[in-house]
């Protein structure tokens, strides 16, 4: 089929997928036990009237299907609802917390992709050697280390050896707070022309990015290596070699391009795993991102906020999957059939 048709169909497919996700999340929240109003009131004193008032404000006294329709209707208009704990629109909360997660995941990917793919490709070319074995073992062991424990160990080491690296947060309080235009600390520092703030942001990015980046790199190494080894074993590679092409050229022109496509596709699909890692990394390093917001809202049973976070996660992952599928289709026409 035509590329345009494929893209259109794929885009349309995203809508029911997101709807399903929203429904699943909504279902989980409302059907399972636990009273959100009690969670918000907590140990505070308060009259029974106030509790009922709150319940009514949240629309929790309406029948379930009405609540659902309300929610989906609002969502289509871009209204994520109101956070009762934070007393402001959920969309504002999401907007406040999204940049930190984006910053963390962006720099982590920037580290992970070259590191993972290059080491995997390198290992594949030296398949069978000691270097290959060490890279494989290294990646495997790193994969087995939970991302939160890795971050903790880094923190322990920094504390024990007194290294001048910040172990938490996105920026130091002493640095005059630059105007937060985008919410991305690095970008904001550049826009404000503040070199101290820029360096400060990078220092705070160091440990979290190493933690999350190496976690992602570990799985990329394995995938890259497997794919390259598979491709190198293909017939046409042998043919090219036999024809007299120098090894390097065979590799660069024939093997690598064919291997890279599935590798990059897989990378795109890893966004879900990356976000998962980001939740834990944010907790360890105290970054105010979506992950922390989710944990916070879960603790308070703030339905709208929880739903907002999860829907946003799902949107990001769907977007990544969409991009991956479309780029794959652009590159490889066979997929569109």
């Amino acid at each position, binding site marked *: 089929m035509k590329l345009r048709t494929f893209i259109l169909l794929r885009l349309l497919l995203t809508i029911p997928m997101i709807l399903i996700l929203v429904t699943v999340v909504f279902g989980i929240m409302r059907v399972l036990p636990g009273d959100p109003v009690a969670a918000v009131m907590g*140990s505070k004193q308060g009259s029974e009237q106030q509790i009922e008032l709150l319940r009514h404000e949240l629309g929790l006294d309406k029948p379930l299907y009405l609540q659902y329709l309300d929610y989906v209707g609002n969502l289509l208009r871009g209204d994520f609802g109101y956070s009762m704990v934070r007393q402001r629109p959920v969309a504002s909360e999401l907007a406040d917390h999204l940049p930190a997660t984006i910053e963390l995941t962006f720099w982590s990917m920037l580290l992970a992709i070259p590191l993972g793919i290059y080491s995997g490709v390198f290992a594949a070319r030296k398949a069978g050697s000691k270097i290959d074995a060490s890279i494989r073992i290294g990646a495997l062991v790193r994969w087995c280390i939970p991302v939160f424990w890795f971050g903790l160990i880094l923190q322990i080491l920094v504390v024990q050896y007194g290294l001048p690296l910040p172990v938490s947060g996105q920026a130091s*309080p002493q640095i005059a707070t630059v105007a937060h235009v985008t919410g991305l600390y690095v970008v904001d520092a550049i826009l404000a022309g503040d070199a101290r703030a820029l360096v400060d942001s990078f220092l705070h990015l160091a440990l979290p990015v190493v933690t999350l980046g190496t976690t992602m790199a570990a799985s990329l190494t394995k995938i890259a290596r497997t794919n390259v080894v598979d491709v190198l074993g293909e017939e046409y590679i042998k043919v090219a070699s036999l024809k007299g092409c120098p090894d390097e050229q065979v590799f660069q022109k024939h093997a690598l391009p064919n291997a890279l496509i599935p590798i990059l596709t897989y990378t795109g699909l890893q966004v879900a795993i990356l976000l998962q890692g980001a939740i834990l990394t944010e907790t360890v390093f105290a970054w105010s991102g979506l992950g922390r917001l989710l944990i916070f809202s879960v603790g*308070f049973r703030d339905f709208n906020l929880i739903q907002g976070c999860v829907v946003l996660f799902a949107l990001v992952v769907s977007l990544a999957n969409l991009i991956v599928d479309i780029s794959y289709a652009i590159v490889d026409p066979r997929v569109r059939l």
Partner: protein
Amino acid sequence: MKMKRTYAAIAAIVIIAIIAISVGYYYYNPKPTPKEIPTLVLGTTLDVTVNLDPGQDYMVGMLDTNNVVFDPLYEVPPGIYPDARLAPRLAASDPVVSPDGLHWTIALRQGVKFQDGTAFNATAVKFSFDRLKDLKSYSAWLLESIDSVDVVDLYTVRLNLKYPNAALKGALTMPVAGPVSPSAVQRMGLEKFQQLPVGTGPFKYVEWKKGDHITLAPFEDYWNQSRVPKVTLFYKIYSDSATLKLALEKGEIDTAWDYIAISDYPTLLADPNLKYAIAAEGYHTWMTLNMNLPGSPLLDARVRQAIIFCIDQKEISEKVYHGVYPPSEETPFLPGFDPKPSWLRYKPTDIAKAKELLTAAGDPNGIDVTLWFTPVALGKEMPDLAALVQEQLGRAGIRVTLKSTEQGTFFQQFRAGEYEMALGIMSPDYLDPDSVAYFIANSHGSYSKRVRLNDTLLDQLTLQGVATTDPAQREKIYGDLQDRLADLAVYVPFVHQNNYWFYKASTVSGVLSYYFQYSPWWTLEKKTP
């Protein structure tokens, strides 16, 4: 390919050079010329969960900053109890209470300005009280006894009460009762106002970045010129005590407010660069025993007493709180009131006595009970406390099943009185014994409902306690109340959660010990070393 490589190499060198220069600049840059007013960084783990509107909520994080941005009518001056007594702040003098106790006439201080320049007067006070009704705030109930407010003249207001309430003076010390600028509310609109509200206090809100920090600047035209702050306060929010402690040790912050974890105290106390002041905030940890849950062994008072005999507060203080929080040896702490030794009848810890009581109650082979707690909302040590209580009660053959639930379910069950035993924290709201007594002893009080307490004598005592303003009478009344509570054995105190306020010895001064949640930050000073 070779060309590409060269370009890549050049790009790499340039990038590295930029980074190296920046890092060098960062580390060797001479300190910026000090501004006129130094910034003091106060680190905390108390985040603002709602907004900064004093009428909206009374979660603790907000209380701290609102305490210095809004002046209440009466205040608790800094100092350790019992020297801390209520004193007039925006009020000019003590209230004149009508003989029937239903009308409080309060003269207001003159010449006071709001932080936006407008004048403070009786109209502003009336506006501030009236708006609470429309806000439907969580904290409005604190002033629930007030029916209406009248403007008598420009600087006099009259509070009309629904019933006599001697404790109202204490309630008036809370930020919810702190007047707000009516013109600011009208000018900014409610939502904006709630982000950066305007009061009369020594500090004013300058900036709030949610989840990150609040900036408070001195209000130069503050009516009490001896209390104009000498620092700009940067209230920096950390996610947990570990990062807070690290920040303190590395000098990222000048002083650490709540919440430093127990385990960190020994190293901080031993740190030569840090000093501290103690704040006895009146919080304590306790266990509540449901006295009227059908089918529960706790229906028998002897069983409840047996449980209390098993509790070793000293062991709890040592093991769970590492000696930092002292054991609490009194029936629930009544703020502003000397505790009577009613609790001593349960001392010392006596397992044999506990077993005796159980046998007398008909349970020689021990009993099975369930202990509820919520792991995070009320403090990190809850799971440890629960485990230790389980162990302590086990010594007398009481088999405890631990039930840990997230706070939604926990508070739902707790409020409905649908639990057997629960761990919690008592946090008094203001400096008056009634702020605790009513809730825990009067059958209409919310806590009493949670333990299904319904006692005629306690009901009488709580009502008498607020009907009279005579100190000697109140002392007798609340003493009797404590005795009766000890008889009934439903509230089991564990430890006092005192707060240690650590600060950098070399640069910070003016850190005062204080009593009861009132944060005298206007005394803070910072010198550049």
